[in-house]
């Protein structure tokens, strides 16, 4: 274990909207150890999407420290950020975000292309990843030939194929019916059990309750950090 995977200290992200300064994140600090399964909850506008973009290295902070797997993210060049995302982060999006014209296998191979892995190995690893999410018999299907749950599984396989240190999921069940959503959450539980580090951004207390740990954001600040069940319950009471 050793160092925490994620170190966030006094993180700020400010936007200039019109003439007004919006403090989307206003001094957030926390750490995430390897192997943790953390939910980030909050109302819309609370800053959780901004936090996800920063943690996912899609955006850089206005001020503060963000260290991912030992490397300082602030001040990295655009190319270095892209490479960091490729190596360290696996994204799962609410709307799956698969390439419509590519097969499941080709979608999963994509991150490995950007890493410069030879074709044969790429193919083998993508097949293994699809195997792992239970889609061994859907490899040559295109996204429009798959159900919502299957699409999200392909997305999970794509997120995992590069063996990133962090799986970052943004409302992964938002576009799924509750039964399929449950499937995906159970898949996340399995991944957690296998030692993956997961961060789940959601506005559903029900999901946060399933996570061992949850962070609650409000108005750009971290207002609560504790076991998922407690945080979720607190949120329900307040709402």
């Amino acid at each position, binding site marked *: 274990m050793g160092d925490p995977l994620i170190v966030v200290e006094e993180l700020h992200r400010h936007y200039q909207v019109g003439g007004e300064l919006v403090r989307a994140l206003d001094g957030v600090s926390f750490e995430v150890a390897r192997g943790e399964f953390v939910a980030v909850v909050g109302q819309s506008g609370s800053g959780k999407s901004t936090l996800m973009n920063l943690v996912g290295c899609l955006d850089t902070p206005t001020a503060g420290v963000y260290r991912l797997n030992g490397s300082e993210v602030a001040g990295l060049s655009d190319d270095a950020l892209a490479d960091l995302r490729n190596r360290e982060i696996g994204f799962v999006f609410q709307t799956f975000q698969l390439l419509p014209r590519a097969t499941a296998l080709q979608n999963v191979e994509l*991150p490995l292309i950007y890493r410069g892995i030879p074709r044969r190995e790429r193919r083998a690893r993508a097949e293994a990843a699809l195997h792992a999410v239970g889609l061994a018999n859907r490899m040559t299907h295109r996204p429009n030939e798959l159900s919502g749950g299957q699409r999200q599984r392909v997305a999970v396989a794509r997120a995992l194929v590069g063996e990133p240190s962090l799986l970052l999921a943004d409302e992964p069940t938002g576009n799924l019916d509750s039964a399929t959503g449950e499937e995906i959450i159970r898949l996340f539980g399995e991944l957690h059990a296998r030692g993956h580090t997961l961060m789940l951004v959601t506005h559903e207390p029900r999901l946060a309750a399933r996570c061992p740990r949850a962070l609650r954001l409000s108005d750009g600040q971290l207002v609560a950090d504790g076991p998922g069940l407690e945080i979720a319950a607190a949120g329900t009471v307040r709402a």
Partner: protein
Amino acid sequence: MRRMREGLTRLLGEIAEGTRIAVFALLGARLRTSLTTLGIVIGVMTVIAIVAIIQGLDVAFEAQIANLGAHTVHVSKFAWLVRGRGAWWEMRNRKDLGRRELEVVEREASLATAVSPQVRTRAALTAAGHQLEGVLVIGTNDRYLDTNGGAVASGRFLAGTDADLSRPTAVLGFTVAERLFPGIPGETTLHRKVRIGARPYTVIGTMARRGKLLGFDLDNMVLIPYTTFQRDLGARRSLDIAVAAAPGSLEALQDQLVSILRRVRQVPPEKKDDFALNRQEQFLRMYGQLTGALYAVALGVGLITLVVGGIGIMNIMLVSVTERTREIGVRRALGARRRTILLQFLIESSLVAALGGAIGTALGLSVAQLIALLTPLAAAVKPSAVVLGLGFSAGAGLLFGSWPAWRAAQLDPVEALRYE
């Protein structure tokens, strides 16, 4: 070393993936793709067709001109290429060239390898119930083959004695022999009679085929002794004197001819020559200027249509980038660098353009073949023209695709992912 190999593998992977995505994107929007390529197609088609025709002309022209004898000077009253009416009237008023000039040139032009007089007219030919109108009748002597080229297919050519004795003998051009005596082999046409105008001539030989030049049938002619020509068809015509030089001494021969002719024709020192020395090279030069202008026009048309087509491509690529903003965001999230996105869209735009270029080339070649079939023009395309057409169109794709591609590469990943 390892990093370099990884970088290369990555680049190759990105190109392969970019090409695959581009092909699917183009196939996925067939109508749009075909409309986009239309500009390029028309441009490349036009250029290839024009170039094919010009190159066809080149091939035919050079072959035929070479036949006319590259080492021959034609001494005439008129220059072949006349600039302006004044010059023409001046030439018209010159003394005709006649047998006196011919004899002196034959005697004194030491650098000449052959000298043949030539007079021409058009007349009707009749034989065995067939009549041919407007056949070129050339009066000449036995050295014609040395100065003008050509070969005898059957029988013999005019002999020196034919001219000396003004014999009524004729050597038929290929087309004339074929039309006057259809279905009869060359040998058996010999010794038959043909009428040129009112007078009967004996066929002593037929010429081998020479083909066409700019639509003119070079075989639609008959050769007779120039003395007979002057007797039967009129002597009041200026002689042309064709003089062949040994290779390399053409310039010297020209100088010699000028001094001989000035002396014979008693041209005072302060006056200009009252005769012209013509060479086929003049035609080549004029022809070069003409086709040079055509090439320039083709290039201009090609460039304009490529620009128009290129703007079409730029437009459609901008649409494509906007449509696929989220895809760009996803790719960026998965680790694509700006360069990767740039490459992908450049591949797409150059592919559309090259596709248009390929179709345009195929159509252009077909149009050229069609023109060659329907008109006397020939068509020929050097591989370089095709390579140029494809290269230019792909280049236009790259050029006009670069701004949309750059815009795609500059998209902020967060914004792109959020784009609806």
